């Protein structure tokens, strides 16, 4: 990976301000890019020559058993331990309240011995009802796409390959319904692995888990086809299988993450915006880069045509996206020309000619030719959140109000006397401890509201600060108003991290939680975002990307 020199020229004049970037509508149009976490993982595995193999495969004719996938990097080895189950169709549920799955997984830190495997076999299939240990980095489960899974097994068993269309229609053999990391259910804390180079980018253990799950899903259909078809059976074609990713089904549980992790959100956004600014600041467009841009645009266009959704909002966005990408293709026939700053001209044209959906897609396409320029920035995606936790009590009321005026003007403008401005409230279900949204006017529970209505909290804080003289310390104010302590912390974080806050009212009637989810999933590298309602979505991970043995053989 190329790390740009620390004295890289200041490109701040080309950086988009938070008032543009941090709006929900734009975050909800985010596209994966070469800065996305799964791309970071695959680049590392390739450049460092990781060796991936499958030391254990004990799966019977019914597809029940266990397997281990071993990923050996230069410093450490990680192992995906997979348990395959025989799940009756009527027990298959993507909901978080499910208690049985087609397959369950843990990512083990190192190589598990027999005792480790026995311990995992007793706990991993239980998921939340079991416990893992600090030797595990993730805990996950997946369900089959019954129709495609069965179709592929039957086709291969007969000695024929499935059609590309049949694969594209679903896009995955299994979809994960949860991938837990960062200390959940007894697994290793983030702090345990944060110092490891290969896991310092966020969600690398989770991405490695899903990538190895993808290999497992294809191995499983090959195994079942061979069992069923005997000598007639063929394995899934290596080119065809690339069309398959791992599906993921995600509900509201994911939505508050970005709000709860303001420093992390800032760093993700800041890295992407710095990358885009660097590209825009380039003095010229080399022939090589122009060629790579065309290739990336073609890939984005193909992807947009394969991308399906029945959700009315997403259908509209897909129509916009396809039309915009066609417009970009048309515009590129006249580009780069000879005038200065060609990339910036392209971007400014996009801002005037494309919808938000198209602009964000183009941002990802524009980064694609410039790995040398932007990939090094991915080392800044992580965050030491603990270091930002302590409240600075020496700050003054004046400074706090100034920070509110500068970073929360969007919140201070909201009229919270209007019912629509606080129509909803976030709460946590007691059943599964999962975030949910309630309607304030008609549903009970607002007394247990989660602190995610940042806009209103900012307005409340500002109103309370008015009563104090400007030089009063935050320490003094916080002592008298513990109810504002959480928001004081956020304001101090926002002063140092301009992209820390989603600049929209998260309890408004019009708020769409899927916008938060799409932003987060785009940073993961998810494609084919498909909302099934405005509260849960399906996506695909690693679709079109190589399999472990594609890289090992390369």
């Amino acid at each position, binding site marked *: 990976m190329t790390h740009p020199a620390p004295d890289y020229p200041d490109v701040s004049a080309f950086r988009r301000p938070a008032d543009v970037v941090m709006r929900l509508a734009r975050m909800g149009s985010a596209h994966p890019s070469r800065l996305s976490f799964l791309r970071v993982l695959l680049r590392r595995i390739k450049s460092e020559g990781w060796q991936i193999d499958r030391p254990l495969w004990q799966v019977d004719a019914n597809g029940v058993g266990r397997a281990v996938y071993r990923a050996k990097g230069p410093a450490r080895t990680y192992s995906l331990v997979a348990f395959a189950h025989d799940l009756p169709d009527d027990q298959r549920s993507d909901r978080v309240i499910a208690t049985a799955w087609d397959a369950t997984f843990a990512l083990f830190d190192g190589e598990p011995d027999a005792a480790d495997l026995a311990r995992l076999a007793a706990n991993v299939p239980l998921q939340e009802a079991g416990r893992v240990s600090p030797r595990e980095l993730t805990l996950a489960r997946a369900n089959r796409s019954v129709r495609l899974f069965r179709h592929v097994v039957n086709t291969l068993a007969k000695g024929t390959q499935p059609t590309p269309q049949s694969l594209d229609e679903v896009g995955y053999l299994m979809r994960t319904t949860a991938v837990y990391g960062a200390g959940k259910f007894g697994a290793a804390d983030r702090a345990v692995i944060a110092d490891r180079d290969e896991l310092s980018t966020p969600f690398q253990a989770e991405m490695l888990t899903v990538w190895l799950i993808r290999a497992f899903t294809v191995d499983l259909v090959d195994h079942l086809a061979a069992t069923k078809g005997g000598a007639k059976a063929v394995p899934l074609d290596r080119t065809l299988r690339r069309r398959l990713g791992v599906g993921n089904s995600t509900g509201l549980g994911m939505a508050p993450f970005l709000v709860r992790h303001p420093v992390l959100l800032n760093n993700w956004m800041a890295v992407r915006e710095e990358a885009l600014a660097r590209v825009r600041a380039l003095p010229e467009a080399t022939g090589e880069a122009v060629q790579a841009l065309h290739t990336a645009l073609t890939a984005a266009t193909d992807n947009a045509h394969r991308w399906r959704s029945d959700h009315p909002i997403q259908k509209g966005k897909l129509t916009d996206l396809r039309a915009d990408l066609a417009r970009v293709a048309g515009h590129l026939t006249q580009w780069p020309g000879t005038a200065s700053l060609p990339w910036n001209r392209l971007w400014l044209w996009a801002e005037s000619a494309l919808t938000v959906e198209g602009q964000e897609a183009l941002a990802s396409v524009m980064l694609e030719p410039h790995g040398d320029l932007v990939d090094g920035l991915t080392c800044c995606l992580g965050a030491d959140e603990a270091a930002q936790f302590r409240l600075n009590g020496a700050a003054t009321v004046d400074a706090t109000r100034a920070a509110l005026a500068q970073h929360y003007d969007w919140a201070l403008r909201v009229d919270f006397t209007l019912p629509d401005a606080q129509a909803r409230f976030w709460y946590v279900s007691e059943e599964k401890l999962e975030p949910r949204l309630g309607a304030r006017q008609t549903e*009970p529970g607002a007394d247990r509201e989660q602190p995610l209505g940042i806009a209103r909290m900012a307005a409340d804080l500002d109103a309370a600060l008015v009563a104090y003289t400007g030089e009063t310390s935050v320490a003094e104010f916080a002592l008298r108003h513990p109810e504002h302590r959480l928001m004081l912390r956020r304001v101090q974080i926002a002063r140092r991290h301009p992209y820390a806050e989603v600049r929209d009212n998260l309890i408004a009637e019009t708020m769409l939680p899927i916008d938060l989810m799409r932003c987060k999933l785009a940073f993961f590298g998810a494609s084919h975002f498909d909302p099934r309602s405005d509260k849960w979505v399906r996506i695909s991970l690693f679709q079109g990307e190589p399999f472990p043995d594609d890289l090992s053989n390369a």
Partner: protein
Amino acid sequence: MTDIALSRAEVEALCLKAARGAGMEWGLAEEAGFAAGWLAARGIDAAAELLDHLTQNADGWPTLSPIPAPVHWAASGAQLCPIALGAALSDRASAADGPCAAPLTTATVHQPILVIPFLAACVKAGDTALALRCGEISLLIDALGAPFEDLARLSHLRSAALSLHPMPATPRAIAPTALPRIAPKPLPGLRRWRGTPPCPPPTPHAKGPARRPATTTER
């Protein structure tokens, strides 16, 4: 019963939710989670101490706040809340009358072990060390924390006044201890708090009926 190994993230989340459920404001509940997590990461299981504190004081958080002053911090009620005191000390880490600048004493603190993480945050921010005397126990807190044995002894002290002296920072290596483990006994109590409505009304804006959502009635 054998101990349950919880990750630091789990200890923090559990204690934050419990503190909020027991009526602490969100920002202080976060501090409670931080304190329990900090101690757990150093091998000190403070879950029972936090639960004891939450259970005893769930109705009276405002009266547990400290009254900062030069030399002596009094309590507005009978005893100081270690979380409110710790947060207030940490907020004043760099203040001229703060704990890193001049010696100070405090009124009696309930479960004083829970103050230590905040003092560690103070010394980190103030680039100093702090000598603490609490009942019969003396310990030195520096940027890395404090020796495990001292923390373990302090965790048995249910309440005591604090006496703090700033000291020059001296680098000292403290071996990290085992993974966080907590005794199973306080878990049901903490989990029970987790789902309870907070005592004070959250904000003047909250107008919803004061019943919990129908989907969350399971206890």
